[in-house]
């Protein structure tokens, strides 16, 4: 049968090459082609989800659609792809956000050809990261993501784009250098020298090495998740990135960190995970509370949403650190929901930015009259984001809190305080933007046009579906999380 995973990864690359050959003046056809490519990728990922058999589980053969070919044989590097409950939702999320962000890339006017080449390269890197099961292949895709993102932020960004792009690049690179060292040491320490993640999981390292390697990998992922001390690149990158890029940045790149934690750090360095779990939980709660506090004081719309992402990913970290089935479920579902919700939020911020060319919250006011649809969507997504029960945001956070309550009850109480703050700053944002008297400067804003609506409505539909019936997503990931938590049952 056709190698579905490879097509999923290299289709955007093919698209990028085709666009590369087109002359730059054919802007309309370039846009259409990239839309077509991302659409096909979405279709492939949907049929991947359809053919995925949720029942297959257990620690050993949990991977499906496996592709296992020798690549650099003498270095024991294999071209090893596979998907399981852990990576499936994230691959679908990447494909969906990729398609919607491509749709909303119509506002990019200058240098369209380079933009879409980098955009499709970015898609390849992202999907590859979620499917690679060989550490070197994982690292390669991890790096592939960096270069196009640097250019996307650096060229099409806002006023301080160079600073933000360089900061983003150096931050992530510093992290991934540590990861490279970790990969190599893992390779040499493992008895049958291998880069294969699954085999590494079986070969036991002694505790001291496990802790060192866990920390090495964790630092690389902590930069991406943004854990507290390493998060300052996120607001700058978000503020300066153009809307579709910041949708991908928030929707997918943050998940690569979380995914890495659940795929590499926890299963391979089990003993270290046991030892360091409380630290992770502590960092998670710091993320939640600190993200909420700082978001409260923001005046820039995008920066506020960026810090709210820091707060949300704190829940993911807390859920993962609980080392229980519910905790892992909460972490993964939290990542999926956060991708959908924050992706939607950034699209909405983009909608407002194309009209007002500013992101200062105080400049807006009383938009409900002039933009009723926009007001409805923004309120809906803000409520989902602040964790209103009945919408998807709540389910992820609730599962993480339930998972983490047993081992760390006091941290859950602190997270509760973070929740109240989240409600505070989101409602004050809605108050400033939508409610209040109509700001005279915002009179000419016309409501959302159909293209913008088409990008937002599917996200809101998913938020509603997952909110009311989370089992639809959960039974995909149940087996994988069971296998993961099983490692820590002993």
């Amino acid at each position, binding site marked *: 049968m056709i190698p579905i995973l490879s097509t999923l990864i290299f289709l955007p690359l093919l698209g990028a090459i085709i666009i590369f050959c087109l002359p730059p003046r054919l802007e309309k056809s370039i846009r259409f082609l990239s839309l077509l490519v991302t659409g096909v990728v979405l279709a492939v990922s949907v049929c991947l989800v359809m053919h995925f058999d949720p029942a297959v589980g257990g620690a050993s053969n949990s991977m499906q659609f496996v592709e296992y070919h020798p690549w650099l044989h003498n270095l024991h590097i294999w071209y090893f792809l596979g998907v399981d409950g852990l990576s499936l939702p994230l691959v679908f999320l990447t494909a969906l956000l990729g398609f919607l962000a491509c749709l909303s890339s119509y506002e990019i006017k200058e240098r369209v050809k380079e933009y879409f080449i980098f955009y499709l390269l970015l898609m390849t890197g992202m999907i590859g990261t979620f499917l690679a099961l060989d550490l070197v292949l994982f690292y390669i895709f991890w790096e592939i993501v960096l270069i196009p993102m640097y250019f996307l932020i650096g060229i099409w960004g806002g006023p301080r784009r160079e600073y933000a792009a360089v*900061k983003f690049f150096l*931050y992530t690179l510093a992290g991934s250098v540590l990861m490279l060292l970790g990969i190599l040491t893992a390779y040499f320490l493992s008895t049958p020298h291998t880069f294969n993640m699954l085999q590494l999981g079986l070969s036991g390292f002694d505790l001291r090495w496990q802790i060192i390697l866990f920390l090495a990998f964790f630092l690389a992922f902590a930069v991406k998740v943004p854990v507290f*001390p390493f*998060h*300052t690149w996120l607001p700058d990158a978000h503020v300066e990135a153009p809307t579709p890029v910041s949708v991908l940045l928030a929707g997918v790149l943050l998940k690569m960190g979380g995914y890495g934690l659940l795929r590499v750090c926890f299963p391979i360095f089990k003993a270290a995970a046991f030892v360091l779990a409380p630290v992770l939980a502590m960092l998670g709660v710091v993320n939640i509370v*600190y993200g909420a*506090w*700082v978001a*409260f*004081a*923001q005046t820039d719309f995008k920066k506020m949403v960026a810090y709210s992402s820091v707060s949300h990913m704190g829940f993911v970290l807390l859920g993962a650190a609980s080392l*229980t*089935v*519910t905790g892992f*479920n909460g972490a993964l579902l939290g990542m999926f929901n956060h991708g959908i919700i924050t992706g939607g939020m950034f699209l909405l911020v983009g909608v407002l930015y194309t009209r007002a060319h500013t992101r200062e919250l105080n400049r807006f006011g*009383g938009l*409900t009259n002039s933009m009723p649809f926009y007001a*409805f969507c923004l309120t809906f997504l803000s*409520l989902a984001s602040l964790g*209103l*029960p*009945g919408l998807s945001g*709540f*389910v992820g956070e*609730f*599962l993480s*809190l*339930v998972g983490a*309550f*047993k081992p760390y*009850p006091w941290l*859950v*109480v602190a997270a*509760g*305080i973070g*929740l*109240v*703050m989240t*409600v*505070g700053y989101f*409602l*004050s944002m809605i*108050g400033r933007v*939508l*409610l*209040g*008297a*109509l700001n005279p400067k915002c009179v000419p804003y016309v409501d959302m046009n159909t293209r913008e609506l088409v990008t937002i409505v599917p996200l809101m539909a998913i938020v509603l579906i997952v909110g009311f*019936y*989370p*089992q639809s997503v*959960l039974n995909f990931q*149940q087996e994988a999380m069971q296998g993961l938590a099983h490692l820590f049952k002993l």
Partner: protein
Amino acid sequence: MHIAHYIPLFPFLAFVINIFVGRRLKIGSAYLAVGTCVLSFLCSLKVWQGFLQGERSYSLGTWLLIQGKPLDFGIIVDPLTIMMLLIVSFIGTFILIYSIGYMHDDPRFSRYFAYISLFMASMLGLVLADNFILLLIFWEGVGLCSYFLIAFWHERPAAAKAGIKAFVTTRIGDTGFLVGMLLLFFTTGTFHFSDFQFLRGPEPVLTLAAILIFAGAIGKSAQFPLHVWLPDAMEGPTPISALIHAATMVAAGVYLVARCFPLFAAHPAALQTVAVIGGISALMAATIAVVNNDIKRVLAYSTISQLGLMMLGLGVGGLSAGTFHLMTHAFFKALLFLCAGSIIHAVGIQDIRQMGGLFSKMKVTSVTFCIGALALAGVPPFAGFWSKDEILLTAWNNHHPVLFAVALLTSLLTSFYMARLIFLVLFGKPRSELHAHESPAVMTIPLVVLSVFAALAGFIGSPLKEATGAYEGSQVMMLASTMVSLTGLGLAYLIYIRQMALPQSLLMSCQGLKQLLLNKYYIDEIYEVVLVKPILRLCQGSFSFDMKIVDGLVNGVANVTQFCSGVLRRTQTGLVQNYLLVQVFGVVLLIMWLLKI
């Protein structure tokens, strides 16, 4: 056959239709909302009839897997739920009819009815939920609708702020509720209410869980520490204050405590806190209501006080007393708010000092207003007397003398401020030129219907009576509570109608106290200084910390590397002899090291 879960679906349907096509429906959206509410009321009657024939709770299906165990959702059918269903849908219908008149010239007419339908759906859903999570979903839904409706006239910044204040304050309570729920889940292993009767003796952990769950009720029912949002919620339209902030939503807290009564009963410490908090709120709110001059704020504080009384009733172990008072209170408080609404609708101002002598101009509203006031004051034939008497009785029989005294004092103050309200608003000579005219029929009919119920509800008796065997009313207690109510009325009569010298001077003497009460014990200001300001400063501080320290560190690293490279660059002077000098120096060191000198 199971139709209970359709009850919340009808209003939800109305919400969906109204929100999308409401604008075109114009008046149709109002009829749609009222129609679905009536449908829900009929279904509730059907469920009640089904309950009498022995139908019980049923499950709907698995929602989620937690710790491996499937968590399934279900519908609970028992006297308490049916009572709540009937009250909510009945009063809701009339309030909707009333608001057709009240809101008919509002630009966002259909959106108002959309939000009200969503509120009805969530409130009915809340009452039907059989486990904590489904209850929490509708609990927040109710909070959300109250936020939308308080901030309905969002042009007024005060309304927007009040909406946020309401949602955040209730959310603080809900966090406690969430933690309590988790604590309960991890000790008893279940979220379902039905499993409470298997509880054994009092465990400290469960007591803490019960108190935390009660925290959620405090937030929602605006009890003592978290009551600040209810008076500000009066910014919303009056039918909203009637429906949400008097009859239904605020009663959700009392409903929650009643629903988990076996849990509270098993832990006397938790029950005690419920009673104490109830008592404090009752007394405090009653004292504030005595001096307040805004008609809706007086009623808001009276609601807090009556809710405190219900909590006190539950706290002293009177499940039937508390719920009975909840039922009667829903009727007459909704009635009072609607009357206040029609007065405001007619007169345009809310300050009772400028009103006066409206009795002659607005006959129907005034009469219904008096009935409601007498019912609230606890004058014998009316509903309020019976339920309040039962609470006093339970408090006395369960040996809570202090709480009994508090309840008695509260009812005295209640009758006093209600009498004050009547005398200032309706009787006496008009203090300012007001052209008051009677409200249209669509507003007065609900008033009349509600007043009939406010009068007769007392004779229905507590719906949970046969379940928990309430005490038969002792004549002495009835006599005592009637005397208290009448003294309150008489005192107010002397002060406000006869302007007697002695009570006037008495009132003048305690100016300081009056000032304190006028400013609502400065609680708002205290919260502002103790909580809001420091949090804002904290956020500002953390943001600047983030910018300066964490970012500073990163940029610092960049600057340090730049500085070092600057220094190194200067060593390359280009003069051959400098390099030679350095070389020779190196050689000399080498020689010294080699020769070990």
